């Protein structure tokens, strides 16, 4: 059963077709990889799937419901969280605050409750703090919870972004190049880490990644984009040997 489905999603920017009638479905519980050469439209596809930009055509279906043209915060509300290729942390805020902010949807204290300490604000604050600390611990950043997000190293910032996305308690997690900037060892650990996340949080994971060995070893199925078009979809071995894919990566 397809949890998240792209039905002919298309996005044009003036004359450029960044995403060209891309259709695929992500099944519940799978780790789904999205690969392709630079500029193939992967991040644009993510942006379409998270409501950051509206599609020029096509539909986005989640749990059987049409969610095309929903806004990002609405999509987050449905349980779809993401990280960003260019890391969009809240730089001058602390790591802890970054993660606490993502618990926004699971709390509801308004202005008056927050200011005057009325229920449910105090209880929510406590829980938010706890959950955020737990998540920081999970990614190994708990000892630097008070440090400003922009002062973290690149790799740590990526981990922080993941912790933040997890704070949304999502059903689907979209990771945009989580391995960028990591060394071999870290990449290997990342693979394990993602598998553990899936198990621990019952997630469905979609990831964009450039480092092909990581994708091959980790993903259940892989989609390959080239020039905005979907050119292959299937299990890693099948995709690896697909002539269209080989040509796309090696050029002619």
């Amino acid at each position, binding site marked *: 059963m397809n949890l998240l489905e792209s039905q002919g999603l298309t996005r044009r920017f*003036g004359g450029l077709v960044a995403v060209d009638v891309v259709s695929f479905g992500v099944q519940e519980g799978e780790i789904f990889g999205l690969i392709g050469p630079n500029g193939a439209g992967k991040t644009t596809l993510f942006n379409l799937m998270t409501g950051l930009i509206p599609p020029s055509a096509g539909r986005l279906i989640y749990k059987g419901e049409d969610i095309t043209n929903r806004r990002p915060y609405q999509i987050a509300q449905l349980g779809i969280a993401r990280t960003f290729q260019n890391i969009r942390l809240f730089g001058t805020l602390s790591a802890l605050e970054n993660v606490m902010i993502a618990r926004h949807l699971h709390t509801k204290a308004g202005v008056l409750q927050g200011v005057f300490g009325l229920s449910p604000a105090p209880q929510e604050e406590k829980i938010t703090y706890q959950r955020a600390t737990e998540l920081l611990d999970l990614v190994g950043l708990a000892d630097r919870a008070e440090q400003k997000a922009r002062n973290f190293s690149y790799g740590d910032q990526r981990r922080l972004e993941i912790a933040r996305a997890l704070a949304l308690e999502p059903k689907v997690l979209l990771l945009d190049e989580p391995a960028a900037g990591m060394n071999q060892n870290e990449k290997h650990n990342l693979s394990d880490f993602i598998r553990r996340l899936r198990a621990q949080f019952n997630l469905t994971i979609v990831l964009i990644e450039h480092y092909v060995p990581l994708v091959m070893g980790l993903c259940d199925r892989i989609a390959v984009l080239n020039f905005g078009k979907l050119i292959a979809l299937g299990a890693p071995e099948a995709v690896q040997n697909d002539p269209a894919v080989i040509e796309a990566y090696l050029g002619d």
Partner: protein
Amino acid sequence: MVQLSLFQRRNLPRLVLIVLGGLLLVNLIASPPQRQQLLNGLAIGSVYAIFALGYTLIFSILRIINFAHGAVFTVGAYFTYFLVGSPVGFNGILAQQRLPFSMTFVVAMFVGAVGAGLLSILLEWLAFRPLRAKGADPLLTLVSSLGVAIAIVNIIQLLVGAEVYSYPANPFNPILEPVFGKIPPAVNFGTPDAPVPVRTIQIIIFVFSMIIVAILTWWINATKVGKALRAVSEDATTSDLLGINTDRLIMITFFVSGFVGAIAGTLVGLSVSIKGPYFGIDFGLKGLAVIVLGGLGDIPGAVVGGLLIGLAEAFVPSAQVAWKEAVAFAVLFIILLVRPQGLLGRVVVQKV
């Protein structure tokens, strides 16, 4: 967020044709009171236009709104006043003094404009360059320019007071009369029974403004410096890498902007007298409406915006004349909501 539209040479002839065509058409069909309104609107609109030109030039090259333009505009007007030899009023530290020499009006205006241009360069060097070097938000630069503008305007007030200053009457006559013969104080655009008088000075201002627009557009499209300017406004980094001396170009832009602004100030002073140092701030505010309407950074847009707002103000029914001052700002507000890139600007898509 808003990309400037290319300074297109083809826009200028189109603009001129539209203006002339419109004038002819309206003259043919409009009733005298409407004709009066139209011409008044064009007159004040042309002044808004040249003021906005300097504003929009800076935006096009630096993507910032230089609110100090209003102050430079004021300084230019005052420079001209003193260079003609007129005395300071009764207030201010320099009360009752005057320069030990005097120049003819046109020379004074020119020299004053050069002075204003230099002041503009000084401001860029003192206030904007350091902020640019720090990579400051354009909003912060706007705020800084606000501070500069307030400081300058109040320095003027401190030095020469806030009284109304007027230029000598008919200062262009010595130049124009040898060519055109005796210049009347007003020209009748109507009939002897239903006269539509327009003060000659308004006509001179309008013509002057159009000449300045033409010169600026030519400068930007035809000269090497102008082309470099367009390059920098499209992409400053690449231009720099290609060997264009962006710093020098920015200085040139500031000089030109200050120069043109000062001329605008003098022309306004000619039209309605210098009402006090704050008239530059008021113009600065209205100028915002003009450049947003035309499209931030767009040169023909500044002219179109200026004329349109001038016309809009002129056509406010006399019963509600007090609301005239709100017209420009109502336009600004609506345009921002409906089409922030202005009439001639183009929207740029942000990469997420």
